[in-house]
């Protein structure tokens, strides 16, 4: 493909870099300017990503906004980016959440104590750059590059501006995710060197045309091992039970903005990777492993909900809800029906918005009272009605109330998985209990914090919502209702790509279904 200029995807990718470079030339004392530059950059990036959406042709299932230039020619590695229906909304989710995360950091107390705002916002924009990169990279090595780079700013954000146990949490996060991704690197090298190219679409094409055959006979065959190397890296990120143990630590210790980004975007990198790489590259192995993955996903749904209910720390509670919610996403992906995958992608957005929103609420409470224990609250509905009202909307969305986005996502996933030969009724029923459990833990949380009598005098005079806080919550609420009431705005652009993907996977799947 001949392209003289830069593709829009490249522009969106490198806009945060521009802001980063400007920040490098600002002095620490110019705190106001630093914040404005960071916010301005992220908003401009968001606007450009909306142009991306506007120009996106939903009926074209191949990659759009493609750009490909050699990077390491001797190994056939290229800077290869492009967007299709699978990645479009994840890019927009990233650019949507980043300004929110920046704005919520504006008044964070942590800077009074630890300072270094400039470094913080540089890391924030670096993180945005890498996250966008993960979603648009079409070259395996380029993908790995962005994937690993996201670790560094997040490690520093948890480690420098986190709570008491921040060093432990940061190092655990770093090592845990690195261990998974390095095994993926070996798989990437093997796959790319065998195929002679690292471009994902080309490899997929080679496999469809039979040029590249990855044998699959048994657990230790090539394709199965490659599948596992990718899957484990992604499963750690998602996180799929039992790879989740880094998540509560990281979430609890991270500053609010980092928690929001972690929940809203970083976890999605894992589930996105499962669709883009596990399903597309190893359709046969995916079908073979699907029941096993589905078991893990269902365990995660129930376990996450259960543990979440037992928490007294609000942040930990929200962190465990992620384990449960992401279980749905993984189940939907490995049901491999077009409804379920549509639902999974939509649920990735929903989880990003609603869990991001819950972390925002928890962060705002923490800024006011400096505690995350639910017992320190109660009766806030009366003293902070606006915050309470918004929290209610977000909580309902998180538990999947009809009319909110959460319902659409979970319902579509369950709809798809019940008809899929790979998951079927039993898994779907078990997963559905997760919806009920979600109602229990979310309502319990809401009740302990917002309902009842005011038990602590400090809670009577909570500061009103600042305009920056409203400015981050209102878009969240709008998105919750928009996706909840008009989901087709979002499903329509992704549906053709998802269908094309399912077509690729289907042959393998029908074979399985026809087995006696």
């Amino acid at each position, binding site marked *: 493909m001949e392209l003289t200029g830069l593709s829009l995807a490249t522009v969106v990718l490198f806009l945060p870099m521009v802001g980063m470079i400007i920040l490098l030339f600002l002095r620490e004392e110019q705190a106001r300017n630093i914040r404005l530059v960071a916010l301005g950059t992220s908003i401009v990036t968001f606007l450009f990503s909306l142009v991306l959406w506007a120009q996106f042709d939903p009926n074209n299932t191949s990659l759009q906004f493609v750009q490909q230039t050699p990077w390491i020619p001797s*190994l056939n590695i290229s800077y290869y980016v492009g967007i299709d229906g699978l990645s479009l909304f994840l890019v927009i989710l990233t650019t949507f959440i980043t300004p929110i995360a920046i704005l919520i950091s504006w008044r964070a107390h942590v800077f009074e104590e630890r300072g270094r705002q400039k470094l913080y916002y540089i890391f924030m924009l670096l993180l945005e750059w890498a996250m966008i990169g993960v979603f648009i990279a079409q070259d395996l090595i380029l993908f790995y*590059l962005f994937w690993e780079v996201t670790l560094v700013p997040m490690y520093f954000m948890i480690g420098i501006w986190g709570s008491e146990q921040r060093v432990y949490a940061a190092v655990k996060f770093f*090592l845990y995710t690195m261990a998974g991704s390095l095994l993926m690197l070996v798989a990437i090298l093997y796959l790319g060197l065998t195929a002679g190219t690292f471009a994902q679409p080309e490899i997929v094409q080679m496999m469809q045309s039979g040029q590249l055959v990855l044998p699959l006979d048994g657990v230790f065959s090539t394709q199965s091992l490659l599948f596992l190397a990718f899957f484990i890296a992604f499963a750690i990120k998602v996180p799929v039970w039992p790879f989740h143990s880094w998540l509560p630590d990281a979430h609890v210790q991270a500053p609010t903005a980092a928690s929001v980004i972690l929940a809203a975007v970083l976890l999605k990198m894992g589930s996105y990777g499962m669709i883009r790489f596990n399903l597309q590259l190893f359709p046969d192995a995916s079908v073979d492993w699907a029941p096993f993955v589905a078991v893990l996903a269902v365990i995660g749904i129930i376990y996450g909900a259960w543990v979440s209910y037992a928490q007294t720390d609000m942040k930990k509670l929200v962190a465990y809800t992620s384990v449960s919610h992401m279980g749905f996403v993984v189940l939907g992906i490995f049901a491999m029906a077009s409804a379920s995958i549509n639902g999974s992608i939509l649920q990735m957005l929903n989880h990003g918005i609603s869990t991001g929103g819950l972390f925002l609420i928890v962060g705002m409470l923490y800024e006011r009272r400096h505690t995350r224990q639910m017992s320190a609250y109660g009766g806030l509905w009366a003293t902070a009605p606006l915050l309470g009202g918004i929290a209610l909307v977000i909580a309902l969305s998180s538990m999947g109330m009809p009319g909110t986005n959460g319902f659409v996502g979970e319902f579509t996933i369950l709809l798809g998985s019940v008809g899929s030969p790979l998951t079927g009724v039993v898994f779907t029923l078990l997963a559905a209990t997760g919806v009920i459990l979600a109602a229990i833990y979310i309502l319990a949380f809401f009740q302990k914090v917002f309902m009842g009598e005011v038990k602590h005098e400090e809670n009577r005079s909570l500061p009103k919502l600042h305009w920056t806080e409203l400015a981050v919550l209102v878009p969240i609420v709008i998105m919750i209702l928009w996706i909840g009431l008009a989901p087709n705005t979002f499903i329509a652009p992704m549906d053709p790509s998802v269908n094309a993907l399912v077509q690729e996977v289907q042959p393998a799947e029908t074979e399985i279904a026809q087995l006696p």
Partner: protein
Amino acid sequence: MLYIPTLEQLNLMAALPAIAVAAWACVLVIVDLLLPKSRKGLIPWLAVGGLVFALIAALLTFSDNGSAFLGMYRADAFTGFLNVVVLLTAILSILMSIRYVQRTGIIRSEYYILLMFSALGMMLMASSTDLVMIFVALELLSIPLYVLSAFRSPDPKSEEAGLKYFLLGAFASAFFVFGAALVYGATGTTQLELVFASAGRVLESNSPHLFYLVAGAGLMLVGLGFKAAIAPFHVWTPDVYEGAPTSVVAFMSVGAKLGGFAALMRIAMVAMGGVLMNDAEIRQAWQGLLSLLAALTVFIGNLVAIAQQNVKRMLAYSSIANAGYILIALAAGATPGLQDAAVRAILVYLITYLFTTLGAFAVVIVLEKDDGSGVMLDDFIGLGRSRPLLAFMMAVFMLSLIGVPLTAGFIGKLAVFGVAVNAGLIGLVVFAVIMTVVSAYYYARIIVNMYLRDGEGQPVPEEGHALRWATYICFVGTLAVGILPTLVTALSDQVVLATALLP
């Protein structure tokens, strides 16, 4: 009758960079005598000037092919690449030394001259195509390093370092010579290319020649493995690194490894190439041996590094681990068809290692106090606040040592793991990758101390312009190679070592 070659036959121009360094070092010995005491400060700058001249010469003659000194010296892209790397190392090391040797009171002009001679030895290790020349180069590389290690005398630690390095080094040299002798016995020549060519004869005959050749190569592997700090020949490394002056450690951690691996590549790919290509059994044994050593080296280096509190010792074990990663590529190079790919991967790795390790040592030099203290892990606490830029650069060097993308270290690991995967050494790569995660733990500790731990940083003295610029160069090099690897691969892709010999 005595054979006197003409100047034309010697073909001196082909060896211009090496000759420039040799001649300039000899000139400096005399200049040093003539300079009044107050002007001795010029010596390091004169040395840098000569090395920069040689560097330019090396870059200009990079793709020239030729041989000099009647086939003893080979000028090709391999030589050219390693010349560039060695000269960069020497220049950066001198820049890092100037202030350091002054304030620690070990200043003597011989320091720079010895360093230049050692660098010459490294260059000759890369370009020699004769076992005798390789041995001379090995000694030329080593002897100045023995002296430099003990330069902090009468500090007992430095003396111990010098003596230990010398004794064990002499032992290693003996291994090398014995190996060379066996190879000569087996093939009747010391010329690497003739050894290559004699493979058919050695393999055909039913004599013990084959055994001598393989045993000789093994013994040379021991001798050179010692220089390159390959386990189990690595035991000298931590003690010498801890005791020797840090500026010397910086130079030898990169330089000695360069020299060792340069000669090892020539011996493994050229001298042994003939046998390896023709005999699958020996090839498997050789590859197995190298893989085993690689795994052991990566394992010991990374595992023991965790326990270190002294950053110099930690970097010593890190340098052992890095030798292991290079060995992985060397092992892969035994697979037919991958020889040149392996050599290129090693060259890329070496240049990434050069910038990263020298940069890390530059930061350690800044922190080190005049009495040699100040190099413990805890001394890095608070550096992120007291010296933000320095800490940032150190963080990048550590990330590069881990192998995080966008830094040079990633490109090096990519190259090495890539060729090993191609050779089918998946198990070895997976093992190395797991050990890389282990390494992330101890490299990250420095970052943790600089940024994440609360605490007042100790006042860090001004480091002076030369050292600062050396650090900047390493920093820029680390990022530039990481972001635009073609800068390096454009040069390394020209290297052909083994395939050039094929008919």
